[in-house]
């Protein structure tokens, strides 16, 4: 699934690896992908889609394919699931029109669209990462409190169960616009409503995903060579300034 510029996350991960001399293969996990394909993946990326496509994807993601994906996430394969993808990893999603779609139940949350005439949650989003382990590891990479900057655009509202939220909303609406939480983290899988090109503007999160994937793949600690992220820093500062959010 890829709507709303979700490809930005894939482009970012792929380039940051190839710039460092790694060979990367991007495998689309579409209808033609098999359970074996899924079980060979080192890093998972999921994006958004229209309600109808969400339903098509879920119809496809059954049986051995669903088990393979569940197995990857349970074993700690890192993943970034944005926009609509998380809704399919929770217990269920109720779209604006049509019937409830049962999810994989990996994340302990449910998502409900309040109806076609309900306001969409739209706008720039800034969060402080609060998920304990992730926050610590990101701090080790950035040497400062990790703030994520993105854009949300979703009709559905998500209510968390026992799962840990990804962060605390400083600007925007987040999971449901009520409890101040945004996203969720389960093992090394991250769910967030901040869609699309989340990673290019948060390069430390991209590097955390890559580092985690490489460490698992090669079974030894890997540290990544630094890259020139001046443009990302400038883009972040411009947005923090505009939103008058004090980050850092």
């Amino acid at each position, binding site marked *: 699934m890829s*709507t*709303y510029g979700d*490809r*930005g996350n894939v482009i970012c991960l792929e*380039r940051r690896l190839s710039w460092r001399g790694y060979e990367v293969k991007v495998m689309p996990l579409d*209808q033609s992908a098999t359970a074996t394909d899924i079980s060979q993946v080192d890093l998972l990326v999921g994006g958004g889609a*229209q309600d109808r496509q969400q339903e098509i994807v879920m119809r496809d993601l059954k049986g051995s394919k669903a088990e393979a994906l569940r197995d990857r996430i349970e074993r700690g394969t890192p993943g970034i699931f944005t926009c609509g993808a998380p809704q399919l990893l929770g217990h269920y999603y109720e779209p604006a029109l049509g019937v409830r779609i049962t999810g994989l139940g990996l994340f302990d949350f449910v998502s409900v669209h309040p109806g076609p005439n309900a306001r969409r949650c739209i706008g720039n989003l800034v969060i402080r990462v609060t998920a304990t382990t992730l926050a610590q590891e990101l701090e080790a990479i950035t040497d400062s409190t990790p703030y994520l900057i993105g854009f949300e*655009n979703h009709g559905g509202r998500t209510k968390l169960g026992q799962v840990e939220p990804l962060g605390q909303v400083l600007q925007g609406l987040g999971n449901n616009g009520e409890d101040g939480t945004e996203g969720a983290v389960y093992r090394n899988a991250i769910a967030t409503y901040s869609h699309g090109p989340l990673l*290019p503007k948060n390069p430390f999160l991209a590097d955390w995903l890559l580092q985690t994937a490489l460490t698992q793949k090669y079974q030894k600690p890997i540290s990544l060579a630094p890259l020139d992220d001046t443009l990302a820093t400038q883009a972040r500062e411009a947005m923090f300034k505009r939103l008058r959010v004090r980050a850092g």
Partner: protein
Amino acid sequence: MKNQLLNKLRLGLAVSVAKTVTSLVRILRLGAASVLPGEIASRIQPQLLEKLSSQVVQGMILIAGTNGKTTTSLLLRTMLERKGYRVAHNATGANLLNGLTTALLENTNLFGHLTVDYAILEVDENVLPKVLSSLQPKIILCLNLFRDQLDRYGEVDIINQRWREAIATLPLETIVIPNADDPTLSYLGQHLPQQVLFFGLNEPEQYLDEIPHAVDSIYCPNCGHALIYQGVYLSHLGDFHCPSCGFSKGKLALDSCNWPQILIGLYNKYNTLAAILAAQQLGVDEASIRDTIANFHAAFGRAEELKVSGKQVRILLSKNPVGMNETIRAVQQVSGQTTLLVLNDRIPDGTDVSWIWDVDTEKLVEQGGTLIVSGDRVYDMALRLRYSQNGNCPNNHLQLIIKEDLRDAIATALEQTPDGETLHILPTYSAMLEVREVLTGRKIL
């Protein structure tokens, strides 16, 4: 009787107030007055759009779709005017309800009499159902449905469903002209009770080498199975069929090989074909149609060409992934070496700029030359271009210049353009208005 008189008075009052507002806005240089007069007059006479549209002598033509409305309208309007018809048109691209009303008010006298033969109205894709509840068009052109400004509306599927419901209730003599190459519109056309004439391409030599990323409806609109494309012309427009239910593209009413096109870019071939079909239905002869195409001048900012300080400048509005992929393709086809990209995120642009990651900017970077970036979200665009490069170091055949200030960016871009070459400017909507203001001193017409 009393009611009728009251209604007439109300109409007169609405018109005169609107005209006063137009004069004031223009005298005070507050803008082009393309929305506010309609807004105020509609408050005085809520059925204003209905009352005015019923006076259009020959009929109304509505043009809907994500991309190409302004260019197609202008072309059709020029064809009709050539035959001596008087045509009302919301030429500034104000395509929400108040913009449509304003366009009709412009041609209305103080007694509330509208004096035009035809009205061509560009209609925003989400407003079309509402418009159809207050007026009955003679022709509806459905150009395409791409992903655009989703932060305003939601999704292509929902829009398409609303169109189908709204058009199906119109009189049977309404002529619907949909794009056959767009699967959702082909499906729409094949399920309407009205007279439907499809336009589209039958030129396999124009197929893209690979299916571009910005594709949103490749699933069969009938059964949900993945569609098979023999070839793609642009985005999800192409020659397709569904292997599961047999759905395929509508039968074309025109052979596209027989007709020339306006301006540059394949997307303008679609716009040309749509206008031809409509003109034919309105009785315009072939010679006049061909002559208008040959002598056509672009609408503001749509492949518009200007001469600035001795340099040639071409402005190619780029407001969504499909549009921008096509403008990049057009720049490549004419081997443009200097390009200015201006990314804004104001309401008319859509406040969400993530769409730039769905654009194949890699093509622009591969071509090399000089790229200058500016706009409200200059660093987001710069970042997109950085991630379009293969190597960790910038390519040595590519020069990337970042300028926050638009005037500065334009001046630099002009300097960087060698004599005899064309500077291409790819702006979002509000950025296009700003660019024109800097280059010509005026925002619109």
